[in-house]
Structures are given as structure tokens and as C-alpha cells.
């Protein structure tokens, strides 16, 4: 990891103010900031390399295709997939998960089959399965969490049975920040003849991901949460599964042959990439991945842990603050959810905003989990490796002032 202050120079948005205060950007779980390298890559692409892909018979278009396919290779390597044909470009995690539910799910789920997810899922890894179950008269089962917020493996063993066809689980929770035992769940799923779909949205920017070691059949994530542009994401799928699946959308690039009455599909992954893809998005995402690889994901993880080891105990020991989930910083991958006394999270977030601290308040698109914590919403602070101790201090100080404002002064 290079010098920290130098690294912070790579992120222009860090160096601006919000409401006339120093910005402490602590909403990285919603979307990450973008390094100069990524922004520059987009600029260069649009200035000099822009062309449509795949069907070009001229130099410019051929080069654009090469860049686009090179992005696939880079991402393949980043998550240790076996083959770049297993990398499908999507808009983001949500689209990737919907794709699996609408194709693999639609083709393989029969009435009475069971789909097993956890109570901790983001809506993007919940509603597609819920609706699939409703369409197919299949059964949706939820694995419970332990009191610590971790996936209860004993409950998983009860819920995942021979009737289970699909297990879907988040790699890292976007509310509590803990890591799911994906490998164990994958083994359980496979032993029962089911596949496992992993929501990697909160994992890829924080910990090294090896889809083969995890045993994931599908693994979905978003570019915008890992230093990349908006509108691009990745669905990894095992090739033998992708090959069995019918297409998701229909249009250009995804067919071999069109007759008036029927069509023949192209091979993977083109079969799943109908229409002009987000070419610049893929190219920009590749630059983001190269940036992360240059830092080294182990070092990124170590830095995250260092920041969390600093912030978590301070937050836990702030009077009136209730932190949800584990007290072990290693079970907070980038994310802490908390509440302050009886204050509503939305009121807290507004106060923190006035102090330059960007956090999120709400159910974080994970209503079942948040309700299971006994509340309607929480305040969430989420870190990235480019945050620093000053950001943490600013949060703690702003919390103190917020408490004072609502309990002392005005109220």
C-alpha cells in the first residue's frame, strides 16, 4: 500500500467540503468514490477509442472490442474464475441476480421446490427469489441469524434439504458487515443437489474473492461499489450452468441466426449480453480492478481492518450509541450500523450531514434484517481503504454534538 495521503490524492471527491465542513465520506457501501485512473480511462476511451464492439470491421471497432474483452479477462483473473467466458457483464448486482432467477430459476424451479435464502439479504437477493417462488408455487425459506447477526449454520442445515434447488446468500452483509460462511453453505447446497448464488456486492472491494475456492455457482457484484463506473456489473456463472441457460434479453449480439419464426442463440457469455453493452463501463471497471490489484486486496483488507479496529470500539463506547451485530471488528467488513438513544436515524443523518459526515439512514434495502434487529431503520457508516482516522474522529465528534443538540439545546 503506498503512502496513505498520496493514495487519498487519487480520489478527488475526498478533498471537497459538504455543508462547508470537511467531507467525511462514510457511505462507501452505497457507492465508492472513483480514483483518477478510472476517470481518466473513461475520458481517453470517449475521446479516442469510442466505437461499438463485436461487429466492427475497422480498426477502431476492433480495438474497442479488444478493450472490452480484455476487461473480461481482467475480471476473470480478479475473482479467480476459470475462464473469461464465465464473466457476464450486467448493469450491476441487482441485474445479475435477476438474470439468474429469470433464467436458471425459471427453467429449474418446479412447484414444491425450495429456495433457501437468509434473513440478511439485500432486497436484490430477496425479491427475485420471492417472486420466482410465487410464480412457480415453490417455497421460500429463510435461514435465521444468530444473536450476533451471523448466519446460523445449524439452522442452515435444517433448511437446506433434498428439496432445495437454489441457495442464495450475501457474501458480506450490507447492514451488519459480517461475512457469511459461503463455503460451508456451498457444500451444504451441493450435497443436496442445489446450486448456490452469492451476492458479492459488499465483498469485492474489501476482501480477496476466489469464486472457485468459495464453491460459488453464481457470484454477482457491482462496478460502482468497487471504484468503477455506474451502470456496469458482473455476473460470474459456472460455464456448464451458463451454457444450459436460456437467454435473458433478446437483441443484437446474442444470436447466431435469426429466422422469421425462431432464432439460434450465440455462445456464452454473448448469449446474455443482448444489445450494445456498457462498453466504457467495462473498460473503466477493468481500470478499477487493476487499481485494486496494484494495491493488493490483502493490503486493502488489512487497511479496512485497521480502520475498523479504530472506529468500532470508539463507537461502542460512546454513551447512548447502540451498535448492531458483532463486537469483533473483523466481523464488520467496512460496515457498522447503529442507533443513538431514541433518536430517529433520519434525524441523526441530517445532523451528521451538517457536520460534513455522509452516512446513510434507513433500512438499507434489507427490511427483514433491520426488522429482525427490532427497529425500522438504522444509521450506517461504511468505510473504504481511502478513509482515515480523521474521518472516524469526525463521525464520533459529530455524534456527540448530535446527542447534545437533540437532548440538550433544542429539545
Amino acid at each position: 500500500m503506498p503512502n496513505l495521503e498520496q493514495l487519498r490524492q487519487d480520489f478527488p471527491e475526498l478533498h471537497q467540503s459538504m455543508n462547508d465542513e470537511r467531507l467525511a465520506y462514510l457511505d462507501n457501501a452505497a457507492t465508492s468514490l472513483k480514483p483518477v485512473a478510472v476517470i481518466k480511462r473513461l475520458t481517453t476511451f470517449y475521446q479516442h477509442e469510442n466505437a461499438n464492439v463485436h461487429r466492427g470491421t475497422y480498426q477502431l471497432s476492433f480495438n474497442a472490442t479488444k478493450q472490452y474483452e480484455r476487461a473480461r479477462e481482467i475480471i476473470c483473473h480478479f475473482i479467480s474464475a476459470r475462464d473469461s467466458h464465465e464473466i457476464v457483464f450486467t448493469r450491476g448486482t441487482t441485474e445479475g441476480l435477476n438474470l439468474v432467477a429469470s433464467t436458471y430459476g425459471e427453467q429449474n424451479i418446479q412447484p414444491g421446490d425450495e429456495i433457501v435464502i437468509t434473513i440478511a439479504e439485500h432486497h436484490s437477493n430477496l425479491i427475485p427469489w420471492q417472486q420466482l417462488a410465487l410464480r412457480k408455487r415453490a417455497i421460500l425459506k429463510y435461514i435465521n441469524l444468530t444473536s450476533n447477526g451471523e448466519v446460523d449454520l445449524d439452522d442452515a442445515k435444517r433448511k437446506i434439504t433434498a428439496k432445495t434447488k437454489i441457495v442464495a446468500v450475501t457474501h458480506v452483509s450490507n447492514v451488519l458487515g459480517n461475512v457469511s460462511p459461503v463455503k460451508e453453505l456451498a457444500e451444504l447446497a451441493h450435497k443436496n443437489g442445489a446450486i448456490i448464488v452469492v451476492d458479492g456486492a459488499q465483498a469485492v472491494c474489501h476482501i480477496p474473492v476466489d469464486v472457485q475456492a468459495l464453491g460459488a455457482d453464481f457470484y454477482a457484484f457491482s462496478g460502482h461499489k468497487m471504484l468503477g463506473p455506474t451502470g456496469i456489473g458482473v455476473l460470474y456463472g459456472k460455464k456448464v450452468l451458463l451454457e444450459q441457460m436460456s437467454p435473458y434479453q433478446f437483441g443484437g449480439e446474442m444470436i447466431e441466426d435469426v429466422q422469421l419464426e425462431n432464432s439460434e442463440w450465440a455462445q456464452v457469455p454473448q448469449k446474455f449480453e443482448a444489445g450494445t453493452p456498457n462498453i466504457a463501463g467495462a473498460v473503466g471497471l477493468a481500470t478499477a480492478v487493476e487499481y485494486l490489484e496494484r494495491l493488493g486486496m490483502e493490503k486493502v483488507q488489512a487497511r479496512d481492518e485497521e480502520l475498523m479496529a479504530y472506529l468500532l470500539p470508539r463507537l461502542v463506547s460512546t454513551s447512548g450509541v447502540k451498535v448492531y451485530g458483532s463486537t469483533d471488528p473483523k466481523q464488520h467488513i467496512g460496515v457498522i450500523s447503529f442507533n443513538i438513544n431514541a433518536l430517529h436515524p433520519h434525524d441523526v443523518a441530517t445532523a451528521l450531514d451538517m457536520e460534513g459526515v455522509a452516512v446513510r439512514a434507513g433500512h438499507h434495502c434489507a427490511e427483514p434484517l433491520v426488522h429482525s434487529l427490532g427497529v425500522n431503520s438504522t444509521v450506517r457508516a461504511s468505510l473504504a481503504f481511502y478513509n482515515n482516522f480523521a474521518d472516524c474522529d469526525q463521525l464520533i465528534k459529530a455524534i456527540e454534538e448530535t446527542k447534545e443538540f437533540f437532548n440538550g439545546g433544542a429539545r
Partner: protein
Amino acid sequence: MGLDKLNQLYRAVILDHASNPHHHYVVPDATNEKTLHNTTCGDTINLSLRLDSNGTITDIGFTGEGCTISQASASMLTDVMLGKSRDEGLAIAKIFSDLAIGKEHSAKEVKLLGDAQVLTEIMEFPARIKCATLAWWAFQRALSDEPREEN
């Protein structure tokens, strides 16, 4: 900027309404009712009211969970609407919704909002406009004839 500016949002009258909300109940024998969610934070407002045969609002109440702003706003709304006719009520709610999206109204019209006038300061806190308007939308939806999902 710091927290000084917060005083502008969290006026005493707002904090009063929020901690001691008026008409905080479900109207028995309600003729109209609507629950709305604030997707931003998962908050909900349930608004119920009774129209008599003349179209007068003879009772109105709200329940639900929410932040200071949304609770205060709902409480203020019930104060203003009680005893108004359906049409008067809708006209007032429209003034509020209009102000929320930046449209202008005369001082006379704004006065019709009662305590809720103070909420127009919310425009300085755009992220909170939705909190303030949720109850007013629920009121409009409860009275509108839209055949949309009824709760």
C-alpha cells in the same frame, strides 16, 4: 456549517408536535384511509379520517413510525384538516405539496397551513422534504378516487 443550522429545521414547534403528537390514533369507522411508506427510511404513515354526508372531515388521525419531521408534519396536518370540507382539505394539501416541489403560493394561502407553515423551511434541507410531505400525500391519496391499491 455545523449544527447551528439545525435549529432552523428543528424549531420548538416541530419538536413539540413530534414528542406530543396530536390525533395520534386510528379513526374508528374511518371512511377514508391510506398507508404510505417512505422508501428512503422504511417509515410509514397511516392516515385515517371520517367524512360525514356533507363531505366534512369530522375526525382524522395518524399512526405509524417516523422521524421528528414526519411525525410533526402529520400531527400538524391533522390539526389543520379537522373540520374542513373534503375540497378545502385537498386544496390545502395541494398548497403544501406545491411548496415542497418549489412552486410559489401567496402568503394568504400559505397561512392556511397553520403550524405546518414552519415546515416550509424544510426547503433548505432538501433531503428531508419527503419526510415532511409523506402525511400530506397520504391525505391526498386517502381522499382521491384513484382506484389504486387500497390498504
